[in-house]
């Protein structure tokens, strides 16, 4: 579609942060997804932050029921969904109230005035109408009856008023698409497929979408539209992807790369359920999905499948990990592959089911009885969930061990352009099953590979390998029950040594320190990669030096981490918890790692981190002066 702009100005800008907000039934997530797809296909770099309540349909018009979707898109490579929106699309007074405080001064507000009645406003604690009382004067306000215009636009389809109003999100999407010169054809195709069995609804949505676009073009309310050029990024083929989808694909890929059928045992839990949904669609890859009666059964069945020679995986969130702890401990003892995916959310207990947090790190490390070490792997961005999942499976299969893969709600639901990997270049994973011993030789299920310390994986079905294993301590080599003190000491230390030894296959960490003269090192793990990177860039733009390093492997740590930490005068560790990685680093390396923490259910803001980093740089300067 070519935008014919006659009386209107088109302004080129580098980047925009836009937030769609409405009731949880208003379709804001869908609206955000579609605009994201349009931006992705256009070639912008982007990063998204969905934010929604745990309640499916919280009471309409209340602050508790507000659902939002934030998208940052740019003509250059970006790392976060953005701190402060430049544009807010608010579908009702509650959405305005819940989000308006986050806007940057001078931001654009597009608001549906339809529900701005005195009664609704009073319920939200507004004394007057904020759109009229001057309280939002620093914003460029477009107060429009989006609902009314939608109903009028779709009148021809004879829908009930309720169904007609529901198309208002598409009207808003059309309007915003016009504002940024975006093609809506992809969304038209999407609606065509989605509502193919409900032609009235399909036509109404498409009509509303186009009506919104046309309204933008003709109304005098908008004098300017914007264009954000495609970003220059590494050459290759791209798609937009969420963390949960990428993680699912990574698991499917690991099944293919290892030649093992993938078996997922899972119990529905936010924000991990989408992995169960996604994997259940790919049975033709030899994927079996088992929706268990509870979290324990989910991991139990996965372990049973692994025992049978499949790639057993269980997916959950923090509360589920707590329930699975005993079975993970059994897998430590049995020494067979198992991948436990924890899509972390706010805790403790039920906590904040739909909000993000990184507070399960110590649970992953230590949340089992006895000395039960397991490798811990963490993705750093939505697309990176693919590689992290493959890596978790590689470690699990190679070392015959349960592995914890720590994603989080921000990665799970957020999205970014993902440079598509070439399947032919992905690393193969060798299951290397045990083979029958020479006749007369006894099979030793707890003999070990000299290099990896991994024991033989011997699923049932091979004559001569019949053996019994279990959760009771085992005699070294034979695997028979043993209560011998020296043997237990040996086995506990061997299991630890096996996990520690994984470091030998982990690439050395590379520090991002362009000037080579930084004295402050920022270290992180998991989803803080984007915000930390953005904060670091802001500091560097001020001419200051700061180094960044980010961990994919949290257990064991890469072999050169200790040397890296020792090189810097100050080490800061931003985390979405109260300092769990910092605790591990301090324990392991005796380095005075400074904690920088947030537990608001939201990722760090780049601006916030910039301020914190600058404070640490100031402190370093101060120390210098005092020393002199």
């Amino acid at each position: 579609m070519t935008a014919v702009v006659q009386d209107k100005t088109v302004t080129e800008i580098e980047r925009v942060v836009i937030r769609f907000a409405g009731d949880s039934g208003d379709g804001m997530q869908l609206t955000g997804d579609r605009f994201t797809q349009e931006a992705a296909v256009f070639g912008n770099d982007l990063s998204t932050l969905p934010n929604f309540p745990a309640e499916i349909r919280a009471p309409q018009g209340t602050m508790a029921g507000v659902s939002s979707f934030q998208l940052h898109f740019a003509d250059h490579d970006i790392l976060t969904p953005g701190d402060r929106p430049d544009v807010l699309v608010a579908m009702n007074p509650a959405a305005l109230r819940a989000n308006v405080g986050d806007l940057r001064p001078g931001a654009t507000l597009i608001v549906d005035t339809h529900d701005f009645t005195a009664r609704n406003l009073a319920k939200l604690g507004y004394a007057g109408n904020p759109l009229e009382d001057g309280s939002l004067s620093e914003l460029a306000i477009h107060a429009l009856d989006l609902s009314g215009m939608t109903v009028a636009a779709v009148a021809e389809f004879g829908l009930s008023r309720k169904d007609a109003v529901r198309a208002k999100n598409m009207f808003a999407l059309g309007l915003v698409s016009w504002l940024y010169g975006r093609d809506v054809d992809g969304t038209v195709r999407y609606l065509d497929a989605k509502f193919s069995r409900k032609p009235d609804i399909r036509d109404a949505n498409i009509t509303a979408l186009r009506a919104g676009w046309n309204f933008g073009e003709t109304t005098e309310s908008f004098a300017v539209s914007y264009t954000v050029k495609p970003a220059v990024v590494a050459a290759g083929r791209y798609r937009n992807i969420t963390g949960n989808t990428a993680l699912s694909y990574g698991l499917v890929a690991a099944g293919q790369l290892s030649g093992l059928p993938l078996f997922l045992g899972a119990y529905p839990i936010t924000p991990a359920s989408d992995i169960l949904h996604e994997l259940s669609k790919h049975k033709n890859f030899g994927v079996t999905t088992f929706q268990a009666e509870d979290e324990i059964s989910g991991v139990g069945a996965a372990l049973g499948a692994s025992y049978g020679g499949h790639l057993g995986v269980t997916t959950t969130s923090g509360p589920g990990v707590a329930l699975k702890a005993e079975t993970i401990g059994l897998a430590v003892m049995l020494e067979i592959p198992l991948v436990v995916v924890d899509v972390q959310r706010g805790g403790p207990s039920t906590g904040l089911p739909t909000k993000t947090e990184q507070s399960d790190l110590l649970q992953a490390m230590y949340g089992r009885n006895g000395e039960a070490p397991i490798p811990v792997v963490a993705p750093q961005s939505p697309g990176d969930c693919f590689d992290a999942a493959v890596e978790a499976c590689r470690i699990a299969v190679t070392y015959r061990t349960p592995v914890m893969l720590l994603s989080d709600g921000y990665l799970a639901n957020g999205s970014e352009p993902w440079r598509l990997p070439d399947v032919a270049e992905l690393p193969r994973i060798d299951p290397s099953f045990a083979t029958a011993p020479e006749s007369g030789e006894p099979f030793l299920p707890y003999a070990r590979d000299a290099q990896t310390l991994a024991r033989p994986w011997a699923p049932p079905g091979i004559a001569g390998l019949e053996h019994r294993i279990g959760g009771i301590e085992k005699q070294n080599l034979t695997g028979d029950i043993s209560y011998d003190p020296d043997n237990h000491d040996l086995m506990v230390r061997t299991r630890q040594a096996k996990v520690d030894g994984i470091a030998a296959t982990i690439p050395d960490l590379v520090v991002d320190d362009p000037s080579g003269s930084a004295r402050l090192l920022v270290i992180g793990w998991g989803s803080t990669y984007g915000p930390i990177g953005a904060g670091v860039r802001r500091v560097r733009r001020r001419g200051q030096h700061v180094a960044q390093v980010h961990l994919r492997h949290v257990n064991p740590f890469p072999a050169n981490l200790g040397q890296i930490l020792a090189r810097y005068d100050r080490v800061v560790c931003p985390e979405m918890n109260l300092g769990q990685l910092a605790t591990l680093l301090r324990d392991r390396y005796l380095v005075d790692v400074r904690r920088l923490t947030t537990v608001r259910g939201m990722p760090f803001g780049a601006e916030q981190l910039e301020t914190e980093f600058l404070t640490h740089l100031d402190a370093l300067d101060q120390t210098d002066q005092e020393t002199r």
Partner: protein
Amino acid sequence: MTTVDLPAPVLGTALVPSTDVVQTGKDFTSDQEVRWCPGCGDYAVLKAVQGFLPDLGLRRENITFVSGIGCSSRFPYYLDTYGLHSIHGRAPAIATGLATARPDLSVWVVTGDGDALSIGGNHLIHALRRNVNMTILLFNNRIYGLTKGQYSPTSEAGKVTKSTPMGSVDHPFNPVSLALGAEATFVARTIDSDRKHLTAVLSAAAAHRGTSLVEIYQNCPIFNDGAFEALRGPEAAHRLVRLEPGLEVTVDEQTWAHDPGDVNPSRQFALSRMDDGTQTQVPIGVFRQVVRPTYDDQARAQVESDTVTRGPGDLQALIDGNDTWSTP
């Protein structure tokens, strides 16, 4: 639901490789020293199982025993098959994954009244409702033995034990009633002291495709000795009601011919209530045996069907999806 229209296997062991090699009980005996208390009913069950397994004619390496925690759960160590001694109550969950992954295995679960009905109650009822192809041997001695003598979920009300010096105030489960309530497709009861009956029931259970639940009355000579004494002494013949298809049974003054194949479980359930706790009339044998598609057969059929319909998955195509763009 999408499934391939394949003829469903009928026998529990239909997909398990068989052997012509003559096997004996000794072939199924491991080198491990058996460590149950002298006089434990578990010995009799172990002997019966070791003696019975050769009758199946299956390759030994395709038989797997999975257990939980408790005295009976040590069972797998003493059999020279594949064995997995897992954690308390979870054996049915682990066996569900194994049986779904591996149709070529004969999967057995060994559990006790505490393991299966207390800590693992949830997994048991869900395994029964799903009808995963496996045989569950529930050793019921109505006591916690390994933890040294606390009352169990099948102990009679008022039971005086270490943890209930004034008598337990719990109402007990009847495992057969529970299994019938969970819509199990095969439910039977037998007793450790009658090897011939035990073997016949095991044989029927192994032949059944789906989850077979076999309650085995088993004596604990240390902590609950004589719990089933009335069923082994001279009076046993009057007290035991040996169920056979067509046997005329009377419960609450109603008489009918026993039909384990009746899809409606009402009468089978009534039969499970015949024993009022006094062991005056105790039915043993097969209460219920009906045909219902198994979870694992159907789950595998969906994988096969999808693979046939769409072809084996193309990883690159999956990763690429439908909305890609290229940057030079």
